[in-house]
């Protein structure tokens, strides 16, 4: 843990130094710009420059990192006194499966739309990480995205990513047209019926 704290503080300290440098940067299109010329408190009588506030914040970050490093060396912070590893075997495995699953989920959203992504991610999580029965996993991973689709896309018109063009044309456009032509009562009924299906499958799984 001590080594991890030390290394993290060094990385964050370097990031702070980079941010200080970055704060002094001018716009890309201004070739005559002199680095650091925007961090003053009153530039040509027009108040602080755009780099003033971020520069001093980054400086504050750097000072804090140095303070953290000193504490780590002197073993005064709790992590620097701990003999436990930064991450045990379970934590590493969990981060790989959960974090990896999340990144996979976002890639699915990019390619196959938000709702198909949700369906696949829910199924992966429930079936392989949660070890739920197959039937419950399938029903949940269909009902949850269906609910979200009805709520976000249809009722609130908060349109979510639809993935590749062919998927949007072949699936989402006709489905959207269908549901948007329905009344709010029909939509509410869809919520209730799919919810009942989910509740029944959950009960079946428990039994």
């Amino acid at each position, binding site marked *: *843990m001590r080594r*991890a*704290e030390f290394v*993290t503080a060094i990385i964050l300290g370097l990031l702070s130094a980079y*941010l200080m440098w*970055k*704060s002094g940067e*001018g*716009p*890309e299109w201004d070739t005559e710009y002199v680095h650091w010329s925007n961090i003053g408190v*009153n530039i040509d009588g027009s*108040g*602080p420059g*755009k780099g003033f*506030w*971020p520069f001093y*914040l*980054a400086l*504050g*970050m750097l000072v*804090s*990192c140095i*303070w*953290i490093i000193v*504490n780590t060396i002197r073993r005064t*912070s*709790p*992590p620097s006194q701990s003999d436990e590893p*930064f*991450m045990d075997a379970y*934590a590493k495995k*969990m*981060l790989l499966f*959960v*974090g990896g699953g*999340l*990144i996979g*989920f*976002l890639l699915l*959203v990019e390619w196959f739309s*938000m709702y198909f992504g*949700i369906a696949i*991610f*829910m199924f992966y*999580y*429930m079936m392989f990480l*949660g*070890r*739920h029965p197959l039937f419950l996993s399938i029903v*949940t991973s269909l009902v*949850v995205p269906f609910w*979200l689709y009805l*709520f*976000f896309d249809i009722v*609130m*018109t*908060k*349109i*979510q*990513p639809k993935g590749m063009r062919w998927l949007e044309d072949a699936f989402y456009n006709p489905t959207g047209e269908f549901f948007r032509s329905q009344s709010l009562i029909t939509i509410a009924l869809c919520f209730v019926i799919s919810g009942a299906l989910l509740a029944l499958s959950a009960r079946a799984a428990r039994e």
Partner: protein
Amino acid sequence: MEILAALTDGILIAMQPHNLGLAVIGVIVGLFVGALPGLGSVNGVAILLPFTFVINEATSDPASPMIFLAAIYYGAMYGGAISSITLGIPGASTAVATTFDGRPMALQGNADRALVTAAIASFIGGTVATVFFSGFAPFLSSVALDFGNPEIFALMLLAFATFIGLGGDDIPKTMFSIFFGLLLATVGFDTISGEPRLIFFNDREQTAVLEAVGMTGAAENVPYFDSIGWFSRGIQFLVLAIGVYGIGEMIWTINASRYKLTMTETKISFSRIMKAIVGMKDAWKGTTIGSFLGFFVGILPAAGATPGSLMSYGVAKMTSRNPKSYGQGNPDGVAAPEAANNSASTGAMLPMMTLGIPGSPTTAVLLAGMVIWGLEPGPRMFEDRPEFVWPLIGSFYISNIVAVLVNLAFIPLFLWVLRMPFTILAPVIFVLSVIGTYAAYDNMYDVWLMVFFGIGAYLLRILDYPLAPAVLAVVLGTTAEQKLRQSLLLSDGDFAIFYSPFFDRDGKGQEWWIAPITTWVAVILILLPIILWAMKKIRAKA
């Protein structure tokens, strides 16, 4: 006496069946919209604004459309606490502080108590604010006008000072967290000069990377190598908040619990809810602080409910006999921000109605609604349009009562969510985090950034970095910088404008006391934990 008579008339009009019905519908809609991450009061009010035309046609009452919109606003303020407590995801910035103690309470199986505390504290906060509103609106709006840029920056400084206390014992890590959060808020286009700032991975850097891997050519031809869509959009508050609480905290909980977690009792009974209501006596202090401080911060232009709730949490913790219990599931830690955000949301309507200055995005939409209905918010509105103003104020009282009753009635439904096995709840929270972030900003860049922040937050949490101060700093960062720079522009770069009452701002020799007093209180609050920390270290050594 005149005010009391007008208010009574207003309440009676607000209690007419059609207005009461609209208040109930508005509160229920607002409650559910507010409970969902990514959707807040502003979405609810904006999306349902067109419905007010139908309402106006049906009722022919000028106050009815606004009563409906105000009820949505109230409902959403109550609803924000629900996702913070049950799912651990702050649905809106106003509910961030509720997560700090609401989530631990849910994890300890006390979600019902947390929800009841949030509902009742919200009710008290909202009612206290409405009483102030009805009694002192013109006077308070003139006080709010005395708060210029230096005063508001000093107030922000005071808020940051209270954050230091939120971080626990590790002062340098807390300070890092605050600076980091403030810095994240600066990414994007500078609001004053309009120039890009801290655009990481800009065209120049992208070209360098492409050349290094042997891919020459324009960066925009490569997927994701387009700086306009990336950091130039800035780093939004919800991206960090949902990342930290929706993803980071969830991964942390999974690791700590190994999926063997029951978040609440399986049976919710009336007696448990009643017990929770009786238990409100433990949260009276937070409720009081939140109700008064929230209202005061809420009436300031450009402040609003978020700083009000954060400051109230900080002050409640700072003045507590047992500050260490905050963050561990202290009911006061739920009551303070919840009372404050409701109180502040009523307070934010004051400058909107009396000066025509909206204090928050939601009040801006409400202002638009008022203009649509032919009203001209301003100092004369109380005299010119009493038939509109007093029923609206009356509806604040009624909406508050309706909201607390609806909220308490729906608690079993909210708790049902927590009875789900953790292996179903966890992916649902991840999914809501992703869809909520997308719904808020309509961009996958923000979703990727949210997941990145979440995983980073988990790793930093292992090393005891407090993340709450960073989230809070992102919320206030933009306003703080704007006010600081505008003040320094006014003073020609002289910092005395903040700490000296004798600094001559306008060449008239006037003394300005609010900013210096606030600044000095903030400085003392910042230095106090550092001094106490140093004394503790010295004593431990001795």
